[in-house]
């Protein structure tokens, strides 16, 4: 897919045709299979999809945090610099000051034997050695206070804080290095709904006040609608639709996006809907369009040819034959596809 930012100049992160395979002895697992997107400064891109569609692998791939058994191909350009193929050491030096990250469970990222303040000291000493002791202290304390952590508690240990506080500490720790790109993988999944909304408010302030580009990985479409400028929908290792979050949610172009929205239970839900079947194995995904076995709108061409990315009427990029291009659809390709029925309990 060809991707552009939202038009405000050079994207800060530009991912092109990224592929990530896991070799597990037998057939490789193609967790990310030719993904392209870009994010501009101050922009938040939401990445959504069911579990097992490659969202987290994509996030880790961008950060160079994949296990040794993974192979990466394609291009990840950060501020014009290619990240695929750089050494572990170089990548390590960039994580933090250039590329920040926030994960779901902050407890696994905080050292239980270090005070909160010490975490900040260490991060700043490692990545900003030019700062003197007083400046390190000032920046640490301001970052923590900015996230609402009581100043009298900076000398406490991670276990003394609640889950919501720990996530705020993680965000403060990512921000103190002033990264240009922040990757947040399910940052609120383990939190209660009010605390989740508090954290989303913090993320919204970030992009307004600091020009941070954010990649927000989530399975919660409600979070995307509230916190993201654009959204990319992933299915079986591919981005099937990407565009302005409001437009995509108002007028989803890909049947997968539409069904995902329909199956989300929200306060507006009046009837239950679900997508039949389950996401496919990434070892041997269905040919042509990977969604065609589950797609209520599938046509003959969908089982024969891989879709070509086009612009949908509302402006988003979409890979679905329903939107053409007409010239590439073979004769009879638009006829309804005869599919096997799913069993009732065939599901994720």
């Amino acid at each position, binding site marked *: 897919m060809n991707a552009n930012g939202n038009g405000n100049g050079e994207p800060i992160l530009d991912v092109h045709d990224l592929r990530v395979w896991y070799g597990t002895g037998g057939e490789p697992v193609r967790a990310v299979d030719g993904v392209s997107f870009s994010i501009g400064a101050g922009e938040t891109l939401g990445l959504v999809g*069911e*579990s097992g569609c490659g969202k987290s692998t994509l996030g880790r791939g961008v950060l160079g945090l994949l296990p040794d058994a993974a192979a990466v191909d394609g291009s990840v350009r950060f501020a014009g610099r290619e990240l695929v193929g750089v050494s572990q050491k170089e990548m390590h030096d960039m994580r933090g000051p250039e590329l920040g990250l926030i994960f779901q469970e902050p407890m696994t990222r905080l050292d239980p034997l270090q005070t909160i303040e010490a975490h900040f000291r260490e991060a700043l000493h490692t990545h900003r050695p030019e700062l003197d002791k007083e400046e390190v202290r*000032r920046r640490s*304390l*301001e970052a923590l*206070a*900015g996230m*609402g*952590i*009581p*100043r*009298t508690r900076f000398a406490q240990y991670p276990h003394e804080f*609640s889950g*919501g*506080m720990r996530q705020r500490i993680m965000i403060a720790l990512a921000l103190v290095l002033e990264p240009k790109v922040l990757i947040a993988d399910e940052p609120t999944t383990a939190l*209660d*709904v*009010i*605390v*989740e*909304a*508090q954290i*989303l*408010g913090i993320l*919204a302030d970030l992009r307004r006040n600091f020009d941070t580009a954010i990649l927000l990985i989530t*399975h*919660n*479409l*409600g*979070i*995307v*609608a*509230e*916190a993201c400028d654009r959204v990319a929908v992933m299915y079986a290792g591919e981005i099937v639709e990407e565009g302005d*979050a*409001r437009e995509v*949610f*108002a007028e989803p172009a890909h049947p997968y996006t539409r*069904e*995902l*929205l329909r*199956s*989300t*239970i*929200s*306060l*507006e*839900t*009046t009837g*239950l*809907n*679900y*997508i039949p079947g*389950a996401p496919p194995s990434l070892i041997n995904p269905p040919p042509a369009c990977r969604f065609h076995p589950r797609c209520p709108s599938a046509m003959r061409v969908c089982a024969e040819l891989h879709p070509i990315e086009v612009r949908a009427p509302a402006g988003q990029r979409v890979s679905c034959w329903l939107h053409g291009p007409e010239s590439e659809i073979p004769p009879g390709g638009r006829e309804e596809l005869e599919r096997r029925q799913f*069993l*009732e*309990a065939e*599901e*994720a």
Partner: protein
Amino acid sequence: MSGPGEQAEGGAGDTLLEVRDLHTRYSVRGSFFDRLKGRESGSVHAVDGVTLDLRRGEVLGLVGESGSGKTTLGRTLLGLVEASSGSIRLEGDELTGRSEAEMRPLRQRMQIVFQDPHASLNPAMTIGALVADPLRFHKLVSGREELRARAVEALERVGLAPASEFLDKYPTDLSGGQKQRAVLARAIILGPDVLVADEPVSMLDMSVRAKILELMLELKDELGLTYIYITHDLATAKFFCDRIAIMYLGRIVEIGPAPEIYARPEHPYTAALLRAIPEPDPRRTVPRDLPRGEVPDAVIPPLGCPFHPRCPKAFEVCGWESRDLRTLLEERWTRLSQDDYERERALIGDLDLLDQPATEVLLPAAEGGAGEEAAEVLEAMRAETPDDPFWSGVAATTVEPGGVRVRFETPREPRDIAVGRSVVHCHLHDPGAIAEAERIRSGKGEDA
């Protein structure tokens, strides 16, 4: 809770389960270091005086955040956790105080489904054996053939059909949704009356949740089940439940018919929860007026109404106390620059003196400092956030040599008040509390 909100309404049947003033306490032993430091061990009041009726054929939602006591309440109802006091009656039979052996026959009538289907299924047993296990355990069926026949019947009822494809599989061979179906098959095989479902879909993908909930509704109709649906998710509860009980720190703060709770939340906590849910509607934005902080420590809960420290509508009698003063001061300090903070911090003594709940407390001046200096900090706080509900609860402040003494209004315990068809545990609906607050306000007016 009792009152008009608990009266039977159209469609719902007779009372199946009657819960009265139920309390469940866990003792907390505290860590090794706590004991070294001489900190006392205490108890967590996980369920703090719950009264409710469960009517035959209904779906009652127990909704709350983590630490609200919803899971403990569910487990206490089943006798998996011992009640500390109060009464649970299943069609008149008292369930509390029974031995395990006395409880066993009643377990056949009440079953539970847990959140994590993977952890609920013994990985070493086949699905067929797992599903039929309750029949074997309760010695209701002995023959191998009959056990298998009953397992087939249960599996097909939950959509694991043809059952022959699943009987000899192991839990690891099944997807998350299929595992939860197997758990449901095991729960219904004894023909229970009540099913307590504790977050049955929250570990499943969005696309599968609707399917499992739909299956549960089908099972309810076909088998005449009554559900207690425990969840933190107000969106699924709205769809799934006939009535909703909102829980906070062990208490039911609001209970009523689901449509009314969602259309007109009466408790400020319910209103806050509803506002906080992220909606896949692009016209919405992140709400700004959220309650501050998080669910407080249940070992020493707040005085008065447990929600008052976070409540945007709290007023004079809601339970203001020493710890609220500390919270407000610490919040202020996060907004100050490091220099201003250090200057102000130097004026105040040991803040830990505010940690014991008290309606009268000394905000201590620094050692050797004057009481006026502490009073100056208190006035700076008031000047910065004069509209914070906290100040309504401050009855008087007096400067003393060692600091400034703050006396709070007398806390009032919230009562259950009938509002429409709901019952609300909130002073805002209590004429007595409102009148008292007005007396306090007019008294303050005269002083001025």
